[in-house]
């Protein structure tokens, strides 16, 4: 029994932290808030030099061939640094969709480009109904003479503006899980238009994507048989977002504690006030155990454990709540300055809220846990 990180994993995490401290400090994040796409190709290229986008990609396609646990450590550090950009959606979600669902030709075309950072992918999943189940997938794929075309709308598609390739959940028949398909669509395909949805978390950008007879570039797996992979992608997203939340919560906690040590009121550091100390202790006592939930969920996903989906939901439910609570307290511990645009704390506060709702909020995942546990 070994529930710990390997030396390589420790090293990966440590070097990621050092790299991001250097390359993605808060002022860098701040500058990207005003960027049109909220994305720095240069940072993405630097991360690619370290092999990060190809972390999950098998070596024969130019990746590092590592697992979700390794990815989670990286994402934890990215959450810590609130890195803006499509990394999670491209290098975890879209990449994994291709790895699991792609034909060998599709893999050959896309995986090396995704791994090298030359291409960016994303997942188009939600629709206006905001449903996470199969009934929420209504975007029609129609068979034409020379292949399929899509007509309809996807909502909340992350970083669609900078993506080269979209993994789109579509309906080829019926209304249930049977009939859901995953298809690849190139971003510059004719008939595809995007519209940004302006959100308070400027480190994440989402778009409404409209399809008007857009040609499908290919199916990931068989038509009508996409639900299983889509469900797995949801688990993956839950673990990935939980890792991001863990790092963000840790950072918010660290910043708040440091601030209270230097801020003086009543002729003493406010860190000496028990009201704040107990707040900080409560944050620690939620964040520390939550770390183990992320590790386990990633490990369960990697090893295809029987309870992998349950573990993903448990992590997502817990981290959704913990990240939000932690950033709320962290803002309060800063007093008035924490409420300003000028101070950085709102980056994490807002990211926490985004992470909370994406791919199912705490209550949704608790209900899932209840079903897994037979009640």
């Amino acid at each position, binding site marked *: 029994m070994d*529930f710990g*990180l390997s030396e390589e994993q420790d090293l990966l995490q440590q070097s990621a932290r050092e790299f991001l401290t250097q390359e993605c400090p808060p002022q860098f994040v701040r500058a990207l808030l005003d960027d049109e796409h909220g994305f720095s190709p240069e940072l993405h290229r630097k991360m690619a030099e370290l092999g990060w986008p190809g972390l999950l990609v098998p070596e024969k396609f130019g990746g590092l061939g590592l697992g979700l*646990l390794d990815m989670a450590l990286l994402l934890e550090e990215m959450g810590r640094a609130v890195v803006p950009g499509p990394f999670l959606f491209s290098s975890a979600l879209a990449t994994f969709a291709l790895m699991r669902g792609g034909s060998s030709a599709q893999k050959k075309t896309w995986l090396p480009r995704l791994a090298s950072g030359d291409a960016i992918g994303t997942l188009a999943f939600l629709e206006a109904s905001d449903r996470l189940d199969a009934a929420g997938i209504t975007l029609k794929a129609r068979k034409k003479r020379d292949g399929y075309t899509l007509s309809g709308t996807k909502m909340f598609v992350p970083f669609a503006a900078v993506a080269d390739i979209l993994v789109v959940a579509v309906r080829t028949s019926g209304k249930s899980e049977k009939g859901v398909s995953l298809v690849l669509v190139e971003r510059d395909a004719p008939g595809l238009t995007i519209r940004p949805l302006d959100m308070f978390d400027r480190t994440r950008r989402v778009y409404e994507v409209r399809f008007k007879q857009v040609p499908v570039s290919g199916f990931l797996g068989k038509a009508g048989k996409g639900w299983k992979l889509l469900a797995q992608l949801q688990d993956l997203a839950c673990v990935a977002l939980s890792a991001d939340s863990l790092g963000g919560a840790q950072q918010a906690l660290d910043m708040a504690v440091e601030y209270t*040590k230097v801020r003086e009121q009543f002729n003493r550091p406010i860190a000496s006030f028990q009201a704040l*100390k107990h707040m*900080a202790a409560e944050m620690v*006592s939620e964040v520390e155990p939550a770390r183990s*939930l992320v590790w386990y969920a990633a490990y369960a996903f990697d090893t295809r454990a029987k309870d992998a989906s349950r573990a993903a939901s448990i992590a997502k439910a817990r981290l959704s709540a913990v990240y939000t609570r932690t950033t709320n307290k962290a803002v309060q511990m800063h007093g008035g300055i924490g409420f300003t645009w000028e101070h950085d704390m709102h980056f994490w506060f807002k990211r926490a809220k985004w992470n909370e709702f994406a791919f199912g909020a705490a209550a949704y995942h608790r209900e899932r846990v209840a079903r897994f546990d*037979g009640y």
Partner: protein
Amino acid sequence: MDLAYSKEDEAFRKTVRTWLKANVPKKDKTLSDLPPNDPRRIQRAKDWQRRLYEAGYVALGWPKAYGGQGDSDIMRQTIVNEELVLARAPGLIGASGLTMLGPTLLQVGSEEQKQRYLPKVLTAEEIWCQGYSEPGSGSDLASLRTRAELVGDAFIVNGQKVWTSGAQFSDRMFCLVRTDPDAPKHRGISYILIDMKTPGVTVRPLVQMTGDAGFNEVFFEDVRVPRENLVGELNQGWLVANATLFHERNMLGSTTRTQLMMQNLIRLARSHSRYGQPVAEDPSIRQQLADLTTRVEAMKYHSLRQLTAATKGRKPGIGAMVNKLVGTELNHDICALALEIMNSYAPLNRRASHVIDNGIWPYEFMFTLGLIIGGGTSQIQKNIISERGLGMPKSR
């Protein structure tokens, strides 16, 4: 990372499980109707610990020289602890000797003390109680006033302890006393071992809110304690005690008991109805059950993480500091939800008709609140986490 246990560990677990299946004492109706501190029940509890010891399953890590197994494999110790819980085995009556005194003596005790006391801790021939708290000194333990004057080759002890769990059936007490009233409060304390049969020791049981007499007042009137019963140096008792407190608080909580409680809670929810609806179908209860599940799972893997760190000889970090706080509050919250589920049936006492699960839930609901207070309250835990863990300055 690899959660599979080694073949050897699996085999060991199987052996322990088989042994426990054959040896865990069956419920004895005639005994369980007696008060908890009836001598026949105490004797039975001692017999159980002794049997477990003879099978080689008590305090595996203690050196052979003092009657232990000399088995430093933390994994095996954890397996035994888990299996004991899974087998619904009774708790060990000598627990405070095993978990608090023993580790302290092993760390700072003299050779004679180790030889003299440790073997009998293992066999339950001698039961120990912890004499720390006093009426005027609880959280502020270092302010304790029970006085011990060194006269010739003996301490003469005068004063009072309170909340002393198990004192009424204990043979000995490890005790903090003031040996230098003029020194700063942390530097005038000594750690001594007191024979409870010494003239001048009076034990008066206090009834807890559960109705049981679990803890006691202990009075000392010119109690003579031989000088050789001093553990560590004179006036260095605070350091010695802190070693013990550390063992008490950061006990690598195997979370098996909490997991079991959670399973029982879900079973309860599935079997009970309330307001014309099976409780497990009530969305608010489902949310609460699943929320507790996420907390239970977090602690399960949190403890595995610490176990792994320990087997690799790594220092426990700030993570270990939250164990007592999080663990005790979680256990209490589980019981609180059980009461919410049982609704009108919740307050029924053990012997009442229509009582659910033998009244274990309301009992545990209260008992677990005591554990939030005992061994350093939740507020004191938060002080420790923020001051020692996060380096926030002391309050003035």
